[in-house]
């Protein structure tokens, strides 16, 4: 792999000298990568992005862009495109003037400028809107202009801070795909901040999950989804059952565990005997099918959601497990009070080591 385009070396940020908004952080972003910083609000993801943009100063550590230390470089000399959640279009300028702004700052000749603006407008499907003011555009159109403005001066790196947060769901999903397509087409490196795990899974090459100023886990979406390293990642990405369990022993890569209710199950993961957490995706559980693990329980709740039915199942000892069953016409779903058997393969049950505190 070539040298990373962006490198954080021990970068930390504290606003008051005590509480750390970002704990010492090491992170590398490859050229052309789509990396998402995912986490709840206050987890440090936006602060990390703003330090890279140059709007916040790191309290410690170094940020390198293309091998150059950026710490003392002001934002306007970093050449990084930024897309903001509230669009941040200049309200007194037309769409064309907004797009011309970064090109004028770079003293680009008029003819080339006009050509670029026309291309950028076509790229975000807003040809014909050049003379509108931002206030005359819808939220989705404004964010397309903001995207075009951040890309028009051909930066190698574009930062996006919850760019779709203010849009409704349908528009958000549509723009997710558009941004992904632009990324593939232009080959630009994108650092994307969101608290929406669905968005992160849809768009990213890699996801860095932030929690309390630290990266909990970083990797491709599938890896994070299938093999979460911590309980936080397991609970934040998609839905999960987190069940306290005791690891009894290991047998050729398979772990024997006992749930707190008494049922013994086979699971996978790295763990030594003792207290642990068993992670089980609701959609990996079958009812009355076959499988190495068969755990009896009683349905307490069944909610029909259209494409699936969500069941709450109480195990012996009172533990509650969520189960998702895909909808198939004519099939009878268990009702509250029915006895069921939860079946799942050992590889669907992941054991996490005891939680660090």
């Amino acid at each position, binding site marked *: 792999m070539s040298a990373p385009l962006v490198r954080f070396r021990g970068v930390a940020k504290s606003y008051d000298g005590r509480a750390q908004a970002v704990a010492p952080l090491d992170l590398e972003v490859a050229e052309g990568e789509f990396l998402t910083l995912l986490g709840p609000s206050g987890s440090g993801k936006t602060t990390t992005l703003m330090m890279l*943009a*140059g*709007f916040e100063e790191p309290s410690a550590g170094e940020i390198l862009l293309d091998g150059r230390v950026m710490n003392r470089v*002001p*934002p*306007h*000399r*970093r*050449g*990084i*495109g*930024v897309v*903001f959640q*509230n669009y*941040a*279009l*200049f*309200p*007194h300028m037309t769409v064309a003037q907004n797009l011309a*702004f*970064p090109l004028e*700052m*770079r003293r680009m000749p008029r003819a080339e400028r006009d050509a670029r603006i026309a291309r950028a407008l076509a790229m975000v499907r807003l040809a014909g809107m050049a003379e509108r003011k931002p206030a005359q555009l819808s939220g989705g159109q404004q964010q397309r202009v903001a995207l075009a*403005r*951040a890309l028009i*001066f051909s930066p190698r790196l574009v930062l996006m801070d919850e760019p779709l947060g203010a849009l409704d769901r349908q528009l958000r999903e549509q723009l997710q795909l558009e941004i992904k397509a632009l990324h593939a087409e232009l080959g630009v490196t994108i650092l994307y901040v969101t608290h929406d795990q669905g968005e992160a899974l849809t768009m990213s090459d890699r996801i860095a999950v932030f929690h309390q100023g630290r990266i909990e886990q970083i990797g491709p979406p599938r890896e994070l989804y299938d093999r979460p390293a911590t309980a936080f990642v397991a609970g934040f990405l998609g839905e999960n059952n987190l069940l306290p369990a005791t690891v009894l022993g290991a047998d050729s890569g398979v772990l024997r565990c006992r749930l707190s209710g008494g049922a013994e199950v086979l699971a996978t993961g790295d763990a030594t005997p003792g207290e642990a957490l068993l992670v089980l995706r609701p959609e990996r559980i079958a009812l009355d099918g076959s499988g190495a693990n068969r755990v009896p329980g009683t349905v307490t709740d069944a909610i029909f959601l259209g494409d699936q039915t969500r069941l709450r199942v109480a195990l012996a000892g009172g533990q509650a497990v969520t189960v998702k069953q895909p909808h198939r016409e004519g099939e009878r779903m268990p009702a509250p009070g029915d006895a069921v058997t939860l079946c799942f393969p050992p590889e669907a049950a992941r054991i996490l080591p005891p939680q660090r505190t």
Partner: protein
Amino acid sequence: MTGRVLVGGAAALVLLFLVSPMLAILPLSFSDSEILRLPPEGWSLRWYERLFTSDRWLLAARNSVVVAVATTLLGTVLGTLAALGLHFGRIPGRGAILALLAMPVVTPSVVTAAALFLAYSPLGLTGTMAGLVLGHTIISVPFVVLAVLASLRGFDATLLRAAASLGATPAQAFRRVVLPLIAPGVAAGAVFAFATSFDEFILTLFLAGPGQFTLPRQIYAAVRDVWDPTICAAAVVLFLASMLLLLASEAARRRGGGLG
């Protein structure tokens, strides 16, 4: 129903009370006699003619305009800079600084005038044009600061970050993004500064030298020292100028739309 009529009537009476001096002076300014009497016995434009031909009045008008323009330039630049600093800077004691800046508005003019007179004497600023402009600037700056601060309240600071990310230096971001958006507030502040200086009397009385008659001071002299009906014409002209300024500031405010 009768309540509404009573309120309307009272409001009309108050308005009449407020504008009646102007209504009285308007016909007087067209009188053809030295003796002012309502209604005038004959009509003429002689007082307007004298206003626009007398060296004394022309000099006073010129002085007024020069001082007001200089005050407007100086006060608008200083006031806008102060407002920007107070709004964007992380300044300890921001409230106290703002209160200090607003002091000249609530301080009785005669106190400011006396204080400036004492302070100017050792500096040799009494009786100079520069001293007069400085004095007027001190009492105009608060209006500019408050007008610009009000328009900055509607300014989205993310726009500054956006401008920087697009390659604009802080100076370019100010000129291309901040200034156009707060222009209505700056314009309103400038109009206030001009108006404050243009009809300022007490500071001028204390600070101006013998040759530095401004229009208000000339009017005062024309009433006190030599009875000169030209003041009626001058009053009408000043009144019209004030009306124009008011309309200008209102237009600036409206053009600002959401801001200001």
